């Protein structure tokens, strides 16, 4: 009973929050609603018994990605009425594409319903995990054993995106003062302090 209640609460709030992301006029409110949606999705994961995924969803998306997102949205002064200007103009085309995609999905659904049996191919597809394995461990097994190739490939892609960002955006500016901690630490009194005996009335030359 409680689980069902919780499900309806999370699911309902997720849909509501998702709707508000699109509808709300203030972009900061949109992002905050997006975060609410993430939370409810995490709640649904917990109900499914995938607590690891739920926590990762919160840590990665809410704790890191959405923070930076919020950061940017707050700093930018986005004028929404300006953004919406093209809306009317592109609505027919966008609507058409949307309808086509919807039609295709319905078609797929319709043709799939007739033969639900053909979905399972033995020895392929989903990887089976023993029942008694905790879901964090199961996740690790799938990710690092069965799909290690994909995991590493994704790593290479991230490396390339990092190289790309540096190649295209990083500029070394001349004349920028940088603090070099090692140099500061390596400084000794012997090389940086000079004791000068000042004679009265004469001063010193620096």
């Amino acid at each position: 009973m409680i689980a069902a209640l919780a499900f309806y609460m999370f699911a309902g709030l997720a849909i509501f929050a998702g709707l508000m992301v699109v509808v709300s006029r203030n972009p900061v409110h949109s992002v905050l609603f997006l975060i609410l949606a993430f939370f409810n999705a995490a709640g649904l994961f917990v109900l499914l018994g995938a607590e690891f995924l739920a926590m990762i969803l919160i840590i990665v998306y809410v704790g890191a990605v959405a923070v930076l997102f919020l950061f940017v949205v707050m700093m930018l002064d986005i004028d929404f009425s300006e953004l919406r200007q093209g809306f009317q103009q592109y609505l027919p085309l966008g609507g058409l594409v949307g309808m086509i995609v919807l039609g295709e999905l319905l078609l797929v659904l319709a043709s799939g319903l007739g033969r639900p049996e053909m979905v399972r191919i033995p020895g392929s597809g989903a990887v089976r995990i023993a029942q008694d394995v905790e879901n964090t461990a199961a996740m690790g097994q799938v990710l690092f054993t069965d799909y290690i190739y994909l995991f590493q490939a994704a790593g290479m892609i991230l490396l390339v995106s990092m190289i790309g960002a540096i190649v295209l955006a990083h500029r070394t500016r001349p004349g920028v003062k940088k603090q070099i901690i090692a140099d500061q630490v390596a400084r000794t009194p012997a090389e940086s302090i000079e004791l000068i005996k000042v004679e009265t009335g004469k001063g010193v030359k620096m």
Partner: protein
Amino acid sequence: MDNAVFQWLFAWLPELLQSLVWIVILIMAILLPLLLAVAFLVYFDRKIWAAMQLRRGPNVVGPFGLLQSFADGLKLLFKETLVPAGANKGIFFIAPVVTFSLALIAWAVIPWGEGIVLANLNVGILYIFAISSLGVYGILMAGWASNSRYAFLGALRSAAQMVSYEVSIGFVLVAVLVWVGSLNLSEVVLAQSGGVGSWFVFSHFPLFMIFLISAMAETNRPPFDLPEAEAELVAGYQVEYSSMAFGLFWLGEYTNILLMCAMTSILFFGGWQAPFAFLDFIPGPLWLMIKMAFFFFIFAWVKATVPRYRYDQLMRLGWKVFLPISLFAVVAYGGAALALGRV
């Protein structure tokens, strides 16, 4: 729920409500002492700080000034709540609530003794990590909703700072949990049983240091209190807050500090366990509190002695020092765990 007193009091309720009441009682059992402790910790903090500066600190309200925090709280409660013109009202008031409630809910998974834990979550470490990474929202919302430059600058600083230090905290946690082989906090404590020698502070010393320092940065404590650097930003994101809204921020901040103390004790100092077998007669919860008090002293000590970091130095420390070390530590401790047959 099997408690005799509880049965006697609430047996007349339906089953479902009974469990609900029981949970509420448990939560209260953690929260009330916690908030009380926070009140005294603020006093403790000020006293340590004063002592290190050869001052007396609060000594007027109550014996030795012990009731100072309550007086302050009461004063805040009776102040008028001000809302700046142009503030985003809803978010302005949600922000302190978010900070405060996030600071409280993290305590659900802290184990106080063998089997004494409100929610023995399998992913306890991740839960704590998730909650602490959310703390930034309260600050960010407060800074933005105040519609003030100082507040906003403070919020931005804080967001960048917390995201930066979370990365190394995350890696430290990964290194520890690989060593333990579980994400459950009770398991982490149990893995350190056998006296002071098997505490992780020795085997994981570099990680302990990184964690402690990052914890200070994560909770915006000096020397990393740039978000509220009073000399530059007046009080950062708190500038526009008054009355109990300010009080909630204040409570949330100290609760978070206490949480970090608890986490340090659990991860590196054996949690509820006694350092030597002959001290086992002291109950577990008490041990945890003693250790938390010890770390709180370190937090206060650092606050009193270390000058504030400059922002670029703070970022450098996080990204160029802690991140590589903790990343390397994950590999090193993972490899060692594998070599020693721990996994």
